[in-house]
């Protein structure tokens, strides 16, 4: 931090937050930073909605016969929990909030390639969200977030069409964001910023955007066909006509498997940034990590059949998908090895972002390893449809993606808001989240292995202890999530003012003020050094 300049502790300087006032300046903005904040507020709102459904479910499950709701209502709870959390929180989270804010700054540009498309993206997301909220209020959906046919297309009498429209519309938000990022990264890098000088967060955003652009349209057409079939009571997924329900699953999972990489790759990008900064070391094997991001994006498209091992897919197709699923674990593992190697002999400090990053590495590894049991055909027969799967994906999505998101929020908060938050409370929250998370989801691995099915509103009495443990953990986790909400909002008014580079991190975003001016940089920077030039800084500094 020896190179940080002292700035006057008065917020007089012009920045993107105080440049213009009034609701119109926010709702009609083209500034990627303001759009990022619009997303931040919206996805936090949807996170709370999705979280509320989870809370209701965990309360219900403290009793073997169900403690709270009718089974039909329980079905609606897990369906809407999944839909809201996946489409309206996880998929947009890091790309639309941190990506939108940071990509232009990190490439050294004044904005994304298409600022108006960026704003349109947000409005599309909101309209999709409104349709989904409507479907929840007007009676809910009980098909599971996976919408399997023919139940969703023919037999369910819940708000399938409304939520299908919501998800369909929101998909375009994702597509436009990805398109914007790809063009920006290709065409708007500052002078001297070659591909292999880019921060790994940009590589992660690039790989994620490839998935968004190639995969989401297939979801769109699948949902479109589903809605048509639900509306007109006839269609191609209907067994009565000779239709194959498995075709829906093929088309659905062709997107929805890569979608999980949309959720995890950005978090991995965040982790790379945080580890490098708080170990004061260049990421070990930079190029390998960059290529791994792209490899995950590509290979991730070739494994979707592992969701269909037990639904009637051909065994031979299953074999191929199983093999490819093992292969896709390799680049993820490479990243974990590289982060670990980065930590080795690093000069480590344990600020809140680093706690989240380290939590990510541990929990993501557990989630990833359990994925191997599911990728193996024989063991999947036993574990599919049980709580083992639920635990597996929550370890990755919550233990991984959400912690990566929170770590990123905490890392870049000074840049975004111009304020610092109290590290003590942040560390406490991170610890509570880590403990609460494990208490919630580790018992679910055991439950699943012992045979408790997922998506059931009741269970055999012998599973009650583990279920109660899980529900207790969920309470702790919920408290953990609320704490940052409080101190981050508090910091916006009462937090100490942040200088341009409070962490002493490398990267172009730290070279401009906190918060940045609307045009990002007084002058477009010229890049002359490699990414993560921490060693040089250490040598020169103290």
């Amino acid at each position, binding site marked *: 931090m020896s190179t940080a300049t002292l700035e006057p502790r008065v917020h007089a300087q012009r920045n993107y937050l105080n440049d213009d006032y009034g609701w119109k300046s926010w709702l009609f903005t083209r500034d990627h930073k303001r759009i990022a904040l619009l997303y931040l507020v919206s996805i936090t709102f949807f996170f709370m909605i999705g979280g509320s459904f989870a809370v209701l479910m965990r309360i219900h499950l403290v009793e073997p016969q169900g403690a709270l709701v009718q089974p039909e209502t329980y079905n609606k709870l897990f369906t809407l929990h999944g839909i809201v959390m996946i489409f309206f929180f996880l998929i947009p989270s890091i790309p639309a909030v941190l990506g939108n804010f940071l990509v232009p700054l990190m490439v050294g540009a004044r904005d994304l390639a298409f600022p108006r498309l960026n704003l349109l993206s947000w409005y599309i997301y909101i309209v999709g969200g409104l349709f989904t909220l409507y479907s929840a209020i007007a009676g809910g959906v009980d098909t599971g977030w996976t919408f399997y046919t023919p139940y969703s297309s023919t037999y369910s009498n819940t708000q399938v069409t409304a939520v299908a429209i919501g998800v369909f519309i929101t998909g375009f938000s994702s597509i436009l964001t990805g398109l914007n990022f790809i063009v920006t990264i290709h065409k708007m890098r500052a002078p001297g910023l070659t591909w292999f000088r880019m921060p790994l967060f940009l590589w992660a955003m690039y790989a994620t955007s490839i998935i968004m652009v*190639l995969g989401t349209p*297939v979801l769109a057409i699948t949902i479109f066909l589903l809605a048509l079939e639900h509306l007109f009571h006839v269609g191609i997924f209907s067994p009565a006509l000779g239709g194959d329900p498995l075709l829906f699953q093929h088309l659905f999972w062709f997107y929805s498997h890569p979608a999980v990489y949309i959720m995890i790759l950005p978090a991995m990008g965040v982790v790379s940034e945080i580890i490098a900064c708080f170990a004061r070391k260049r990421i070990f094997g930079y190029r390998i990590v960059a290529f791994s991001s792209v490899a995950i994006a590509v290979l991730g*498209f*070739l494994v979707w*059949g592992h969701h269909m091992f037990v639904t009637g*897919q*051909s065994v031979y*197709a299953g074999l*191929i998908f199983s093999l490819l699923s093992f292969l896709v674990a390799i680049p993820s593992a490479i990243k974990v090895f590289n982060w670990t190697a980065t930590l080795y002999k690093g000069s480590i400090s344990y600020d809140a972002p680093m706690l989240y990053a380290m939590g990510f590495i541990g929990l993501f590894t557990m989630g990833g390893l359990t994925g191997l049991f599911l990728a193996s055909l024989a063991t999947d027969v036993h574990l599919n449809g049980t709580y083992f799967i639920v635990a597996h994906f929550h370890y990755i999505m919550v233990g991984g993606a959400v912690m990566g998101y929170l770590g990123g929020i905490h890392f870049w908060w000074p840049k975004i808001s111009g304020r610092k938050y109290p590290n003590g409370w942040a560390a406490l929250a991170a610890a509570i989240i880590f403990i609460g998370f494990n208490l919630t989801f580790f018992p679910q691995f055991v439950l699943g292995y012992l045979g408790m099915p997922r998506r059931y509103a009741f269970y055999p009495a012998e599973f009650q202890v583990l279920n109660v443990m899980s529900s207790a953990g969920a309470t702790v986790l919920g408290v953990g999530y609320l704490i940052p909400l409080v101190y981050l909002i508090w910091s916006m008014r009462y937090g100490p003012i942040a200088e341009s580079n409070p962490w002493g991190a490398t990267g172009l975003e730290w070279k401009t003020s906190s918060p940045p001016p609307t045009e990002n940089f007084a002058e477009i920077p010229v890049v002359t050094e490699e990414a993560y030039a921490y060693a040089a800084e250490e040598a020169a500094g103290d």
Partner: protein
Amino acid sequence: MSQPIVPQKTYVLVFLCLIGLTILTTAVAFKDLGPFNTVAALAIAFAKMLLVILFFMGVRHSSGLIRIILVAGFFWLALLIAFTMSDYRTRSWTPAPDSWSSTAPPTHP
């Protein structure tokens, strides 16, 4: 997108080729070539598509990046079709017991 200006004659020529190929594919449809009907129809369609892409859409003069992106798009679609089709084509390799078929007579428990 500062591309060279293509002569009007080139566009008209390409158009005439496209018309020719359309007439060809329609004519071929009236002959019995067995499975080759499908092959011919798809091959002609691909040829027409290439003409439109290269000439009308200007990919003849496009950068390598655009070409890679275009190829990637088609390749991804091919992946979707190929992998999905592989499921259907290989289902019969593991024959299911007769009793699973809906047309089999029901058996008593």
